[in-house]
């Protein structure tokens, strides 16, 4: 036996390893928090977040050092990785919680029935008052129109890819759907701008915005529908075809109904995604303070645009309106998400696994 093996054998002969007791990490957390707060105060950091960072740093170093002294290098590395991963998690949670908290906390100050039912028509922008009704209408119409355009095209494209798609056309479509997913929203807006407004000479309208949103929505619908259709077991298709049902009826009557839950989820998630888009709206819908119910004629507003606009006004009253609108928008998007995920769980496709 070589020396290498001997070394291992000796190592393996004792299963007993010096280990830190189970409560050590918890004790260390308490100690580091105390140290973080203490040192932080001593250095004059007023910010609890900075103290937290300091505590995290103390914890990482201390648990590594302790592990290295008591348990040896490998265990110490393991402890280091564990504490780093936990710190990553905590580090990420802080800003995200803060975002939600700020939006709710500051949004609720002016969010009430009046805010939801009135526009900004004739409201002095530096004074409190006014609402986001016109923006809500705008968002609903633009997103609705976008969905009307994008869902049929997206669905049919997905059906083509899954049920018919072979050969170079299908490959090209698959590739460009992926490419399309990555188009920045502002670029989609610029495209509609150059094509619809500059070249064809139409004016700014909700519909122009809806077209840009549709471009952003299409690839999402295609992707999610594709995934769902692929989950439909081939046995179902074959069973139907074997009964002499033509392919198109098989797709409509057997495949789509089986996947409908997942498809609905995908569409709703896509809607939630584009409802928050503001860049194309800035370019194409142009923004309005009053109510414009007609998406095909004249400028409109939308919730994301409204937030941007109110933020730009730069005074306390408009900031409050911006937060309130942000709260409405987040609530809308979150409800769509929750419902969509609910449907997905409720109507989970029977994948046969």
């Amino acid at each position, binding site marked *: 036996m070589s020396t290498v093996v001997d070394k291992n054998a000796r190592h393996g002969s004792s299963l007993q390893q010096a280990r830190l007791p189970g409560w050590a990490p918890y004790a260390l957390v308490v100690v580091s928090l105390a140290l973080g707060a203490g040192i932080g105060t001593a250095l004059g*950091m007023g*910010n609890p*977040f900075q103290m937290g960072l300091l505590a995290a740093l103390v914890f990482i170093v201390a648990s590594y050092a302790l592990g290295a002294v008591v348990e040896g290098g*490998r*265990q110490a*590395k*393991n402890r*280091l*990785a*564990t504490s780093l*991963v936990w710190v*990553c*998690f905590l580090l*990420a949670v802080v800003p995200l919680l803060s*975002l939600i908290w*700020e*939006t709710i906390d500051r949004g609720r100050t002016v969010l009430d029935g009046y805010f939801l039912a009135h526009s900004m028509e004739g409201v002095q922008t530096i004074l409190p008052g006014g609402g986001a009704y016109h923006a809500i209408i705008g968002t609903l119409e633009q997103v609705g129109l976008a969905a009307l355009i994008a869902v049929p*095209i997206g*669905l*049919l*494209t997905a*059906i*083509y*890819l899954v*049920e018919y798609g072979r050969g170079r056309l*299908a490959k090209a479509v698959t590739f460009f*759907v992926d*490419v399309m997913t*990555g*188009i*920045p*929203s*502002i*670029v989609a807006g*610029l*495209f509609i*701008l*150059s*094509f619809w407004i*500059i070249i064809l000479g139409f004016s700014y309208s909700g519909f122009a915005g809806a077209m840009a949103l549709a471009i952003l929505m*299409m690839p999402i619908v295609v992707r999610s529908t594709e995934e769902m259709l692929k989950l439909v077991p081939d046995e179902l298709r*074959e069973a139907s*075809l*074997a*009964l*002499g049902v033509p392919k198109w*009826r098989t797709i409509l*009557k057997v495949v789509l109904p089986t996947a409908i839950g997942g498809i609905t989820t995908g569409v709703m*998630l896509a809607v939630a995604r584009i*409802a*928050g888009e*503001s*860049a194309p709206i*800035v*370019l194409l819908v142009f923004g309005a303070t009053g109510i414009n119910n007609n998406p095909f004629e004249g400028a409109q507003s939308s919730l*994301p645009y409204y*937030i*941007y606009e109110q*933020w730009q006004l730069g005074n306390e009253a408009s900031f409050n309106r911006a937060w309130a609108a942000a709260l409405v928008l987040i609530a809308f998007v979150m409800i769509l*998400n929750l419902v969509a995920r609910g449907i997905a769980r409720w109507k989970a496709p029977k994948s046969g696994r």
Partner: protein
Amino acid sequence: MKTDIAPTSSAAGSPPKVRTRSTGRAGDKIFLGLSRGSGIALLVIMAAIAAFLTYRAAIAISKDEANFLTAFEWNTSSSPMRFGIAVLAYGTVVSSIIAMLIAVPIAVGIALFISHYAPRRLATTVAYVIDLLAAVPSIVYGLWGALFLVPHLTGLYTWFDDYLGWTGILSYQGGAARSLFTVGILLAIMILPIVTSVSREVFRQVPKMHEEAALALGATRWEVIRMAVLPFGRSGIISASMLGLGRALGETMAVATVLSPNFLIETSLLDPGGGTFAQNIASRFKEAGNDGRDALIASGLVLFVITLLVNGAARMIIARRKEYSGTAA
């Protein structure tokens, strides 16, 4: 539905399609036509995007008296126009790189936390919340960034200036922290959910048997991750990062709300100034005349090409990974 599976001779031609009634055939043709048409429509849209942007961009660039690629100015209201994208390219790339440097390690950490460290219930909750956070609209991030993050960063930046100011790139003259670095931090927070959820998905797909192989050799949890999880997930992490990068490059409104733009390349990342492609378009659009809009479209075309390249690379890595794991399985 009728099932006339008569033993007709035509059945031999196409085995699954026994039925030969003409209504079925016509229906099939129409349906195929519609769905193929939609696929083609999608291709046409993509082609049109490239074509129209290029067309307008060409018009704008032909009127540009300055060098489009290297000029440090954006003056489209006077004639002749003078504009160039150097500052925008710098700002876009720098802010995205900062975002990646912050977001990717943390996102991988969270993904590992969810897939391998957290107690099960906490893990599912965290995963769910992260997915929901991916749905928060960018303008809300922008609002939060401008009204909450920016005021809270001045302390940190002053600290940077005290200890690292000598480097030049981390000096800070005070004032609102509406700089490229702030943009980078905000973008990092914004792309964190997507990078996390893609990486988590990849880590979850690591075959249990590879992890057990490592465990059975006497590996600690970290060593299991290093031996079995990270190598398996490496290309997944890369493509997740690229997807995040694609988002960061094209992010518009959050940057427009947080950044205090100018058309200079500042030495310090912490001082306000600079700009990005998307932010520049959104900020200048309302004041731009017809020529000015074309100039903005030209810069948009550059952004389009950059994001295409980044996303294309990400997709290629994913595709290769699929093939690879396909043969390995």
